[in-house]
């Protein structure tokens, strides 16, 4: 808890919720976007960006009060912050600490950049991408996203 208290200089510890640590520097806002947190959501959120880190040159930290992230939400984060660690906090204590895993299939996370793709129409489907070593492969139109994945986040 000492470590948390030190970080508290930047952002306060939380009683219950989720702390996402070791996010790639500068990606905190994208992490919030990827887990669906916008200005319209009700959670209390603390964000620290470009914090000095021993492991990484700079890291971001996100704290979300009163919300424990689901496994699927956690794994989406791996797309842009593969070194992130997730701490589920209960009564100021770390209840569970885990890393992130890149999922095999991403459903409704990124938008296909191909304007001719059926997933960009009014059909009742979510976008669906297969995660491959060289990028994301649209399972509808076979388009590949090989760079700048964050700009395609839904």
């Amino acid at each position, binding site marked *: 808890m000492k470590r948390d208290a030190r970080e508290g200089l930047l952002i306060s510890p939380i009683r219950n919720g989720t702390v996402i640590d070791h996010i790639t520097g500068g990606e905190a806002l994208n992490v919030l976007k990827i887990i669906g947190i916008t200005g319209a959501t009700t959670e209390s959120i603390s964000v620290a960006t470009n914090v000095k880190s021993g492991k990484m040159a700079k890291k971001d930290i996100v704290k979300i009060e009163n919300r424990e992230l689901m496994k699927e939400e956690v794994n989406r984060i791996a797309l842009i912050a593969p070194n992130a660690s997730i701490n589920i906090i209960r009564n100021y204590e770390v209840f569970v600490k885990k890393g992130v895993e890149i999922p095999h299939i991403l459903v409704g996370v990124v938008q296909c950049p*191909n304007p*001719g*793709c*059926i*997933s960009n*129409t*009014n*059909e*009742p*489907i979510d976008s669906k991408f297969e995660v491959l070593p060289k990028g994301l492969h*649209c*399972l*509808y*139109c*076979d*388009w*590949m996203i*090989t760079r700048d994945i964050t700009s395609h986040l839904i």
Partner: protein
Amino acid sequence: MNHIISIRDLSRNEIDQLIDEASRIQSSRFNDQLLKGKILALLFFEPSTRTRMSFEAAMARLGGTAIGLDSVEASSMAKGETLADTIRVVSGYADTIVLRHPKEGAARLASEFASVPVINAGDGAGQHPSQTLLDLYTIRQSMAIEGVSVGLLGDLRYGRTAHSLAYALSLYGATLHTISPKGLELPSSIADELREAGTEIVEHRDVSEIIGSLDVLYVTRIQRERFPDSASYFKVASSYRVTPELLTDVRDHLIVLHPLPRLDEIDPKVDQLPYARYFEQSRNGIPVRMAMLQKVM
């Protein structure tokens, strides 16, 4: 469910089985009542002559019945119905759906909502597996596909038939020679993937450089709408035209294929030469589509 959406979903063994079956069918070894009492729904949301008619003919030759839309304007799609709903409804009317749609991935979506098999008859710039199967079938009528040397000529950027054929030929260890105007080259994503799979791809600007060492010349249409004006189109199109003069010093067994319709890419005088196989290729659509219907129904 036994859908046929993309040539990439089929293994070499499955492709060989379909081609073998098409070959048996063409030798009149098939049951002409096999699909008696079965109904095929043809949902064509884009114009088509060959594909639509050959699926209808294939179904009729197997004893079945085909039903379909006459136009999108006459369908509920014009009222704003989603493709997903159309597919769910038509699944209740027919035993198999053949779909052509302007959006890429439409057939994949259809397969998710259909309760009967779906065959992709072309989805935008995407896949058109029955065309690829009949291309392969036509090659195999003349020679073994294994290790064949194929020239892909024309618009290789937007031409879906060339993309699908390139993927399929890579399963057979073919060497691909690409000949396309600047800006219409085979997309690097496809070329890289094929090279990673071990396929040799050699790029050329001029077909005369390579014509003498080809077994197959696969010609695709250069679409006028890809060019800013008619003058620039004609300049490019004329330099990619197949003429009798081009074919004076070629291998005896060379075959020239084209998915049709052709415009200016092949001089009509080539039709009389023994190399011209594009009309035969088009006719092969019947046995190949019969084999596909037998497989899924």
